[in-house]
């Protein structure tokens, strides 16, 4: 299975790879020097001109990159102002006659966090052709990360507890179950966990976790990257049993998690159980809205015409025999067909 993955590259980055090159997750794709604390460079004073007059004597426009020692302004009498540093000329003030130059900090690598072959490079992004299995979630957050996949719950409906995160989880992508508290997520990040995959999470827990991260970032106590992928939905929602079995089977495989893009790649893996909208008779299905959110069963029939849901909305409706044996009508739009088990994934 091959997928195209586009990695945005900020303006000003120097690309370190070429088209056709194979890259590893820990490989540098580009290098980038972020602007750092700007320096104030007097311009009007050294030129002995009034600030508004000196504005017309700038040799480089604000926004341009200047080298150290490069003249940035020159008067008709030959007086010059040289840039004391290499950096971006960000502004010139007509009030005080000073220029602002932001030097560039040390080189920082932009890591691939992904395995594959570079298929395209454009000014804004590098595209990687990925060989592996891809799983799309419905939500996520955080930076791109990579690591070994491990499963830290015994049951797809089990909550991922803080106690399940230990030193063995460091640098790994941890598969949890139906939810994780903000405390668990915070502990995971503090323990150096690369990322977490969950069936569901409460919006409040995610919000609390984000607030904790923000406070830690403000006080400078946040290090390393962390990503989170949500597979089924918000609330306490377990992973589908078939998908959970697939995760268990691929425990120990390398994976790349792109939380903001809601995507997980697993390498050397069979494909995950397929999901498909508009299920057919006999399909194994997963329901996605309350009161059956996250529950799976078999589609055993269709209701003729439109059926009124308990909310009063008329909808095309299927009859689903859930795994607890109950057969009940569910709007067809709320169902997804999925492979009967992970064994259906052949390639």
């Amino acid at each position: 299975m091959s997928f195209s993955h586009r990695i945005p590259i900020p303006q000003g980055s120097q690309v370190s790879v070429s088209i056709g090159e194979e890259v590893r997750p820990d490989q540098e794709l580009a290098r980038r020097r972020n602007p750092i604390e700007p320096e104030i460079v007097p311009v009007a004073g050294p030129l002995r001109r009034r600030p508004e007059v000196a504005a017309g004597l700038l040799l480089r426009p604000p926004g341009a990159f200047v080298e150290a020692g490069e003249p940035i302004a020159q008067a008709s009498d030959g007086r010059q102002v040289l840039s004391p540093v290499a950096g971006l000329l960000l502004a010139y003030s007509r009030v005080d006659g000073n220029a602002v130059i932001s030097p560039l900090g040390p080189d920082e690598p932009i890591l691939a966090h992904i395995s594959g072959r570079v298929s395209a490079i454009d000014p804004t992004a590098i595209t990687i052709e990925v060989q592996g299995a891809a799983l799309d979630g419905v939500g996520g957050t955080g930076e791109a990360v990579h690591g070994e996949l491990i499963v830290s719950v015994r049951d797809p409906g089990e909550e991922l507890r803080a106690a399940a995160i230990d030193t063995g989880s460091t640098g790994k992508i941890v598969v949890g179950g139906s939810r994780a508290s903000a405390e668990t997520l915070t502990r995971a990040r503090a323990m150096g966990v690369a990322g977490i995959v969950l069936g569901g999470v409460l919006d409040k827990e995610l919000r609390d976790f984000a607030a904790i991260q923000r406070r830690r970032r403000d006080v400078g106590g946040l290090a390393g990257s962390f990503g989170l992928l949500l597979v089924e939905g918000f609330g306490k929602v377990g992973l589908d049993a078939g998908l959970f079995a697939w995760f268990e089977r691929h425990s120990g495989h390398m994976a790349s998690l792109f939380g903001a893009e809601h995507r997980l790649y697993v390498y050397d893996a069979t494909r995950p159980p397929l999901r498909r909208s508009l299920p057919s008779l006999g399909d194994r299905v997963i329901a996605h809205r309350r009161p059956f959110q996250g529950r799976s069963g078999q589609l055993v029939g269709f209701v003729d015409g439109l059926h009124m849901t308990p909310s009063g909305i008329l909808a095309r409706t299927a009859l689903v025999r859930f795994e607890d044996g109950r057969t009940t009508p569910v709007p067809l739009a709320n169902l997804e067909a999925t492979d009967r088990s992970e064994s259906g994934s052949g390639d």
Partner: protein
Amino acid sequence: MTSVGSELALLVDVGSAWTKGTLISRVRGSWRIVAHGAQPTDWGDDELVRRLASALRPSADPRLARDLERLIAAAPRIECHTSVRPARLALASVSRDVSGAAARRAAESAGWLIVENASADDGRALTDRLVALQAAEVDAWLLSGGFEGAHADQALEMTALVAAARGDRREPVIWAGSSRLSHEVAGLFEPGAVSTVANPRPSPEREDPGPLRIYLEALLSRTVEPESARHLSPVSFRRALAQLSRETELRIMGIDLGARFATVVLADGRGEAESRVFARGGLTAAALTAPGGPGRVTRGMPEPIDELTVADTLQNLGARPATLPQTEEDLAVLHGAARHQLASVVADDLRADGIDLLVGAGRVMAAAPRPAMAAQMLIDGVRPLGVTALAIDGGALLGPLGSLEDGEIGEGMASLREDLLVPLGTAVICRGGRSGHVAMRVTLHRSGWPSIGPIEVRSGQLQIVPLGAGQFAELEISLEEGASLGTPRRSRRAWAEVSGGSVGVILDARGVPTSVPRRAEDRRAVLAAWRDAMLREPPQPAPRAR
């Protein structure tokens, strides 16, 4: 029995979450809807055709029953669709709340999505601002700042920051700041990169976003699917309402509330229409799930649903917009979100005061279990002051019809006049009045029927008077001290011709905007009373006069 032959046409509105298809055919000499279906967009075209065929089959000529799918697939198709992706903009301004706010409003109402909003007062360090701008993936850069005639250094500094961030990229740059700086701004970019547009905030007291919005609308149509601009839903919806307004000479406001987009159109009764398109104004808007969003939705709901449940439901709606609310709780949250979004998209510079007709479009209103729910979403969200007819675009016809060529829209709409809109009735909304006292007395006169009323409507109260679709009445409205219908005349007595619909005449003295108690239980009680008044089965009308 419906005659099915070559005289079939398929009108399709492909939304980001739901696709609506309507099959029309000639029935006894006029074009009528013969089948309608709505389905998640990713179910695909074949399924829509199958669905329409199965809906049509019971009433179709049995000789054609086997051929229906082929006939529908081959029928002329009139289609509009939501754009594949929104156009993205980075905004740099001097002040987030002054020049930045004016530029942001103009850009968002033109359908752009602002992916980075930098201002000199945004609290970030200069370098953080620069890094954020460098990382932004955009289709255009918008710069704003400086009142007219002023030489704002900060505006030039923000411009330089954008020049540094943009580097050698070639996206267009729009300068919408002090015209005195235009030359200097242009000098910071390569020749031809900068377009200058009138300042949306020319002075501290004045905001004039119109020229910038119009410019950005044109740029957007060149940026996103330039070859099919007429078929983009926000454009076609506007064209359809402009035509409707031209034909009826009514002042019409239409709001299409979709999963991603919200479009507000105001047509002036002469066929001129302007619109505001919000790329993130629909039911999956980030604002609904951002901090404070679920709380605002919860506060507008009569149902005692806790904010955490509302937040999870809104997140799930965003994650899976093509699913349906199966429980009453989920439906309440969806409708609460719809009311909130309707209010937020009309809170800008397009006001609903004095309009003759308010049209709601979008799946959330068309699929509401009861017409009164759709009516409540409209009047609670939009609060049209005065006497306003209400209708919904139940068949999702306006968008596809608006995608026709200029010369064909009128003909298309005239052909489907009988089915075009689903009338809900008429809302009479007043503001003011003394709390707990009568705000207006309304008497409904119908030719050949006994008059109803005068009905006393107290300030803060809502009442429904049944008046069926196709029925008309004359309302005699007597306003008490302090109450107003928003008309320029100060007369305390007003007369209005009104039409009925599936809800009737809504007498609403809740004010504009409505005010509710701060205490949660009291607020819910008030909101529940309003909901119950809307949904209550109307009393049987008095017997017809002999």
